[in-house]
């Protein structure tokens, strides 16, 4: 078995194992760490696909930024270990396995049957498209509009996240916040 095949299987197993860990581990912190494992494994797969630049960005963005944010929030909220869905809804666990199998058979098996032909199995090719230069050229010529839209999108997200998480209400009027909370309680009682 060639080296790349070994690497593929290794990363694949790591990715799937990490994924399973995310889904089943009751502790959110551990789940997050399993997700980091998956991310690293996926970065390896990207390299195998000759997407070096994406692989680096992936590590930087996902493992570096997003996962830190996740962990930060988990720690901040001091989230406890989660008990499983209780009562009648407990069957969701078993049901979800059925859904998984169905979805996988459809997407993974039937969806890609076109690739299964014995003679012409398309293999991963040696290519230059994943280089920084290629991507940079594309990004600033043909794909300049999506690139700019992405900035608006990030701006939107920034405004939204700021608004939702800022502490004080309005222009520094704590009294107002108290009023709102009061009204809230009234409404709850009405319900």
């Amino acid at each position, binding site marked *: 078995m060639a080296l790349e095949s070994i690497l593929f299987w290794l990363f694949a197993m790591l990715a799937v194992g990490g994924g399973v860990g995310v889904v089943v581990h009751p502790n959110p912190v551990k789940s997050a760490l399993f997700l980091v494992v998956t991310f690293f494994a996926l970065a390896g797969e990207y390299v195998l696909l000759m997407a070096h630049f994406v692989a680096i960005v992936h590590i930087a963005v996902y493992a570096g930024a997003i996962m830190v944010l996740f962990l930060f929030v988990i720690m901040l909220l001091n989230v406890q270990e989660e008990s499983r869905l209780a009562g009648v809804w407990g069957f969701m666990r078993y049901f979800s396995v059925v859904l998984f199998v169905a979805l996988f058979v459809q*997407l993974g098996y039937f*969806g*890609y049957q076109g690739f299964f032909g014995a003679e012409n199995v398309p293999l991963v090719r040696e290519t230059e498209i994943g280089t920084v230069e290629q991507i940079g050229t594309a990004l600033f010529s043909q*794909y*300049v*509009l*999506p690139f700019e839209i992405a900035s608006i999108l990030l701006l*939107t997200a920034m405004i939204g996240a700021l608004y939702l998480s800022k502490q004080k209400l309005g222009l520094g009027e704590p009294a107002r916040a108290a009023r709102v909370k009061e009204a809230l309680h009234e*409404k709850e009682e009405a319900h």
Partner: protein
Amino acid sequence: MVTINIGSSDFAAILPILVVCAFGIYLMVQGVLAPRIHKLTLAYIGLAGIMIAMVSNFYLLGIETDRAYFEGMVFVDKLTVTLNFIFLLTAALCLLLMTSYSEQEEIEFIEFTPLILFATAGMMLMGCAESLMIIFLGLETMSIALYVMAGFRRFNRFSLEAALKYLLLGAFATGFLLYGMALIYGTVGTTNLTQISAYYSENALNLNVMALFGVALLVIGFGFKVALVPFHMWTPDVYQGAPIPVTAYMAVGAKAAGFAAVLRVLVLATGQAAFEWSQLLWLLAVITMTVGNIIALVQSDIKRMLAYSSIAHAGYIMIGIVAGNETTVSAVLFYLVVYMFMNIGAFAVAGIVSGKNEQHVDIKHFAGLGKSQPMLALVMTVCMFSLAGFPPTGGFMGKLYLFKAAMESGYTWLVIFGALNTLISVYYYIRVVVAMYFQDSKESVKMAAVLPGVGLVLLVTLLGIFYLGIFPGTTLSLLY
């Protein structure tokens, strides 16, 4: 060497989007730099921006239409212009509603105005997209703004619950949408809609499973945004929890944007292979209408009722999509315009009746409105009759065109289902009218004041509904 083939005409093609984004950024900076500025001033600047964008929208008619710009990223045609108009008008009306709503609820226009402007920009991008990438980015810009807007009453547990549910399920649906895009990309080798269209029409007879799955997942992703059953589950909860002007914006704008994408992809791009999915869409349309209408029957919360009604209306619009002939686009667009007026009108009245903290959102709180607030009751009645599809309102004409489009393609049974559903829907719309005119209010409901802003919205919706109902011809010929 890198060559950039982007000229001034390319920017002209997205002029309304640029205007809206520029105003959004300006307002954000303004709000930060001059925090003492009166909050309503920000809203009015935003309105001015929308107005300017509307004017600049006409500029699009001046440039060369029916071609792609930005290296095949956006496409300018009559559909683009009409959709831009719908999105901008919706944003303007909802922003006006929000100015009144801010009297009963603390609303921070420093954040709200840029958000609604960016959301509108996202919708407009979906409307003019020529690439799956633009559709995706536009959809996400819109969605992220909407997630936040749904939770805008951030000290209200209902509002935040709505935001969380919308976000989780929305991101979940985005996953399916992206998977579909990936499969289409894998099949065709590009995300350009014109090339996708060419591929699907050439290979209409021997599309492989992957190609079909791609479109199916795309339909599911858009179906989530427009609330097709069974991807509608979020709708009632989110509509109920979100602040009323935001609900109106979601119900109209997001749905119109979703259908814009459906039109772009299903009708215009992959339309040639339509027979492959027309049966599926047929089924979705029938299920959507029926489920929406049947559950709406027992709702007592006006927002929730309107949410199920909006699901049902997504089903009606699907009738036009299923038809898939040359009248589809104009019929769907006309219905979207009508739908905008009648829904915003209904939500505007609901916003006034609900009063402080949205306490009075039950249908029983509408009792006696006919006596105490005859003009409000009139607008609500007209909106309800229009939603139920009575002549001479726009709702009737809209349904007429949709059904006509379906009939022309021979979908008689679909039209019969549509008419049956209309029959059912009358019952719950009329309940509101009955409450307003034929019942006396048992408790004195303290309503919000009718401010000039919301008064303008009511007037525009009333005139719009009647104008479209009585003189639909001019609008229809302008649309597409």
